[in-house]
């Protein structure tokens, strides 16, 4: 089931080094790129159907088209390498194993959108990864792929790595921009959208690492070759991260559109320890959970996920076996999102803390049925009332557990904590 487009060079020894990467085709598209007009590049990417691989799934070529023309201001490219959504761990493979593919993608994107300054925002936790990335950038400068004349062409491009320092919310594109500007990563209200007023108030495109890294293939082989993979509306491949209770967790490149359970079974070795499946989180911790029944019919693409009232997200699949205590899982989730709430908007700032205290009370066995109802109501009261979607990233999944596994929550109330726990054994 696996395909190797983005991950083609991942297994090559020292494939992250420029010399080796070049032997395997890195920067091969540069001359072709500069023979094209920027509009033609945008058109090719639009035709490929490439969708933002950060989680929102917005078509990349369309996003680029939002840039206003002739503002007289510089255009910035910000590469989102914050990868902060729990269960997401794909981009770092690119950063470490094939950074030149991403740098090549940055050149392609910059040329297409007329940008000469890229900031790569990498999460602070990625300590060794940032070193690997910086080393690759240094190599690219040395070899003339970055700097005043990209590969000898009359095109200047500066790439700067900006390190985060522990804030999930900086994965939100405007939180990311704030962070580069030296502020707290508190998302901005939109409009204005970053394409119009982004970094330093200038037109800015923000793309995920994987989206950027997909560009060399699209440019080299063409949009049609990319669309061979995936479904009609969800084209291409994706680096899926499979974690949780499977025999072979890990990162796998797969075309979009495969049946979820088949992937879990055949690619990730199935539910571990011969246990039964209890649920699947399809695209990172913020996506609503699927029951085994729902999981049967879902395929790994944007449309099928939406039909199943969940989201493709970042492609971080988490498998839950029969022993998982959904009440405690929800506690773990709320803890995370509360911890990461930027503190800007009232409902998220105050509400998530309230939800955390309530779920803890339930877990302690001190909860009442009204507490569970209140949790559910708070999800509604918080969701979409805020500047960014962090609050929804918490309330959407929490609501799904409360709905689909309500009996487990009720058991904590009616039977007390220890009995409820015993039921999980």
């Amino acid at each position: 089931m696996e395909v190797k487009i983005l991950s083609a060079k991942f297994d090559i020894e020292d494939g992250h080094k420029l010399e080796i990467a070049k032997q395997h085709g890195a920067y091969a598209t540069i001359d072709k790129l500069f023979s094209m007009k920027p509009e033609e590049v945008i058109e090719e990417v639009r035709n490929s159907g490439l969708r933002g691989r950060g989680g929102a799934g917005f078509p990349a070529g369309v996003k680029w088209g939002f840039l206003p023309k002739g503002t007289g201001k510089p255009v910035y490219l910000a590469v989102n390498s914050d990868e902060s959504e729990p269960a997401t761990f794909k981009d770092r493979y690119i950063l470490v194993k094939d950074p030149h593919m991403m740098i090549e993608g940055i050149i392609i994107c910059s040329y297409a959108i007329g940008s000469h300054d890229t900031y790569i925002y990498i999460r602070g936790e990625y300590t060794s990864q940032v070193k690997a990335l910086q080393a690759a950038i240094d190599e690219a400068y040395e070899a003339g792929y970055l700097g005043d004349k990209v590969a000898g062409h009359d095109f200047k491009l500066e790439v700067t790595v900006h390190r985060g320092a522990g804030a999930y919310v900086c994965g939100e594109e405007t939180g990311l921009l704030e962070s580069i500007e030296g502020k707290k990563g508190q998302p901005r209200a939109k409009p204005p959208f970053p394409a119009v007023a982004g970094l330093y108030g200038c037109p800015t495109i923000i793309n995920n690492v994987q989206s950027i890294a997909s560009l060399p293939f699209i440019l080299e082989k063409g949009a049609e070759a990319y669309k061979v993979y995936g479904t009609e509306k969800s084209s291409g491949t994706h680096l899926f991260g499979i974690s949780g209770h499977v025999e072979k967790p890990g990162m796998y490149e797969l075309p979009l559109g495969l049946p979820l359970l088949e992937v879990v079974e055949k690619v990730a070795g199935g539910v571990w320890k011969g246990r039964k499946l209890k649920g699947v989180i399809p695209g990172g911790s913020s996506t609503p959970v699927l029951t085994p029944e729902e999981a049967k019919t879902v395929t790994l693409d944007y449309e099928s996920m939406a039909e199943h009232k969940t989201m493709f997200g970042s492609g971080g699949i988490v498998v839950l076996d029969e022993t998982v205590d959904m009440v405690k899982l929800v506690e773990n989730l709320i803890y995370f999102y509360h911890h990461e709430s930027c503190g800007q908007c009232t409902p998220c700032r105050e509400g998530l803390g309230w939800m955390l205290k309530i779920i803890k009370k339930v877990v302690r066995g001190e909860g009442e049925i009204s507490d569970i109802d209140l949790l559910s109501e708070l999800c509604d009261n918080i969701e979409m009332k805020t500047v960014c979607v962090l609050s929804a990233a918490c309330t959407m999944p929490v609501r799904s557990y409360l709905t689909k596994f309500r009996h487990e929550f009720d058991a904590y109330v009616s039977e007390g904590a220890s009995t409820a726990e015993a039921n999980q054994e």
Partner: protein
Amino acid sequence: MAEMIKLFVNGNEVEVEAGKNLIDAIGAVGIEIPHLCYHPALGADGNCRMCLVGLEEGGPPLVPACKTPAAEGMKVLLDADHIKKIQHDVLEFQLINHPVDCPVCDQAGECSLQDYYMTYDGQKSRMTVPQVTKSKKMDFGCGVVHDQERCVLCGRCVRFCRQITRTGELGIVNRTDTARVAIFPGRPLDNRYAVNVVDLCPVGAMTSADFRFKQRVWFMKKERGVCHGCSRGCNITIDHNREKDQDDLIYRFRPLFNEQVNGYFICDEGRLSYRDENENRLTEARLSKTTISLDRAVTASLKEFKRAEGIVILISPDCSLEQMVSIKSLAEELGAPLSGFSDGYIKKGDGDDYLIQDDKAANRAGLTALNIDSSQSAFEEALAKAGLLINFNNDLSLFYDESSLKKLFKEKRVIGVTSRDTKLFQMANLVIPVASFTEYSGSIINCDNILQTFNRAITKNDAPLDMSEVAALLGGPLKTNGDRYDKLKKIVVSLNDFNPDTIPATGLKLT
């Protein structure tokens, strides 16, 4: 005239000013959209989420009114159930970690959170888990005391210090519900407008050390006034109260919005100048240190006039135009030279590029308009030739030190007509108390040539006379305000249309 547009609020067509956000545009026609973080001087931040309103047809269904420009044909929903629910929900979130200790909170009675609770919430608390605790009674400097637990994190204070004073002392540290307003240790508030954060704070998180717990706000009466601390003439609200068996006292000055004079703010010095209205006041006339009645003081003055070999009259640059013209006429009547010498009022370099002026005189432009000479030489020459100085509240001690004053007054008789019982006036032979600027009505011209009027705000138990009335008692020909206005118009061309009733509250820019 601003461009007007038509839009719909709850289905009703309203005409509002274009170019404003929904809060201001709709607010101007009397429809309130609740909000905590938005302030017109500080712009829209959009963090409190109180102002979320619905939009029908087109656009996102829910928008923050503070960040949404009013547009032609827009259909704004305020009274729909789902909008009311949002207002209720957001308030609930604001209140879950709030102490809700209104009875002991200094803000009670002028608190947005309290008011909104009554209007939009009114429910019992559902908070059955422990609240977040934070620090209380923190000294932020400049007389600002902060209570982190009462704070709603609207960030107005932070934005004020970054955008208005550009001193940036405040920040919101941490994140999630442990976020709090803080100063960086060792770098407290240090700007001359700091106490404005107390007014800006929509709740009781920022309090003034000077005012807190002195008075319940609902006991105080509020009057409009014009600050006399410098030549800016900032508009103020005078909060005062007469407690049982006490005199009418001012408890604070607060800024009053006037776009063309001071905007939304005042300086801290001006704010605290209310104290001079309460303290060190001259309340009774004195002749050679003996208290006498006003009648006797007037009689004694007239005797002094007769006895004197040459009189010179000195006038304060803080006087109102009405007082100036009265005193000018008195001087003409007495054949006495009149001086407005007040160089001491000018503190060179003290002003800034915002509100504070070098010139601490409230109405120097009035002296100029009435052709009253203010030069040091003319004053000193006139005084040298005269035997009697009548000083109408001019604080000469701002210019001359004590020994110079003694030299200046040597072998002179001095009559002081003053509101202040200061060392300077204690040197006078005869003093007559007069009203201070919160106790009379009048007009002044500020540093930008804007004419402003103000009315009497305070009536003391033994209300001293307006200086104009004293001038009349001393033989001045202008007995009524009508007389004074007529005379003013004759002298000052730009005041031809002067009629205190028709001057807008925001002032009249003179040409």
